[in-house]
């Protein structure tokens, strides 16, 4: 019992005091990534209006939309939403990354898939219901 207790205490001591670590301990401070706004602006200016883009902001939030225009300090983007919304202005200082968003399918195809999924789910539901009622 005493040996187990001692072994446990030693393990805790080794793990918490840093005796078991190798090399010099250094304090690591998380550094915020530095973005060159001039480079970002040059890049965004080269994108044609109407491009579908994915915007990642420095606070970690991201969204997809259509690039409408670029000013000296901001990009104007209309978000991809179900009901169209007014374009929003995103300051370049807040942009961490903009990438071209290549669509994998057409809107018609997406709507078709949605309708098929809805009808399929409903028919499946009705089939289960019919089976339950005839039971």
């Amino acid at each position, binding site marked *: 019992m005493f040996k187990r207790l001692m072994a446990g205490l030693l393990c805790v001591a080794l793990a918490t005091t840093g005796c078991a670590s190798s090399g010099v301990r250094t304090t690591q401070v998380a550094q915020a990534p530095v973005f060159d706004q001039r480079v970002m602006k040059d890049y965004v200016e080269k994108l044609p209006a109407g491009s579908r883009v994915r915007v990642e902001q420095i606070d970690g939030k991201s969204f997809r939309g259509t690039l409408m225009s670029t000013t000296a300090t901001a990009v104007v983007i209309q978000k991809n939403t179900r009901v169209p919304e007014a374009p929003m202005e995103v300051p370049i200082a807040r942009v961490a990354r903009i990438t071209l968003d290549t669509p994998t399918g057409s809107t018609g195809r997406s709507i078709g898939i949605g309708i098929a999924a809805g009808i399929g789910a409903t028919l499946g539901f009705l089939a289960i219901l019919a089976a339950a*009622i005839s039971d």
Partner: protein
Amino acid sequence: MLSAVCAVWLAGSAVAAAQEAPSGPISRSDVQFVIGWQNLHKPASNNSDDWVNAILFGGLGAGWYWTDHLKTQVDFGGGTSGHQYRYEPRFANGTDLTQFSRLEVRETSLAIGQQYQFFRNQWFHPNVGGGVEIARETTTEAYDPVFGFDPVTRTSRQIAPARVEGPEHRFIARPFVQTGFKGYLTQRAFFTTDMRLMVRHGIDEVLFRAGFGIDF
């Protein structure tokens, strides 16, 4: 329990109204029609299955969006008659007998609840919610005649005649919780499905619904 649900609902509506964005929600209201599968918990002392499952449900609902995420929903609906076969042991003339009966149950309900809808202005919106349902339940129990074997005359004879109890009507108020989603087919038209659990001394009813609706 009911008052707690009401308090949460009222608080949610008040907070939602206070936090409403200046531009208002994307949609102000919606209406929907649904069909569903209703499952009622009807415990009987000797039955192994306490649930009445074979009930088709139909309903209409309307919702009011306080914000893009908070919605008050009112639903009206009813189910077809469900049946449960029951039996009760009886003892008469020194013989063990069995009393068989058939319970018929039907519910019409009005539910008001508060939902939280995830995401904003997307094509797929899961939601969770809760509220109170007031149901009018009609039950009728038809008892089969009871026959017993008379060992003296060595014939079977009727010991109890067939009888019907009901229909009896009663109102039940139950809190419920629910989860489901809306999947949009166009900008305004949507497919919706959800599962609702009504609570009263445990889970008293399970309702699966699916249907279509439109936003305004």
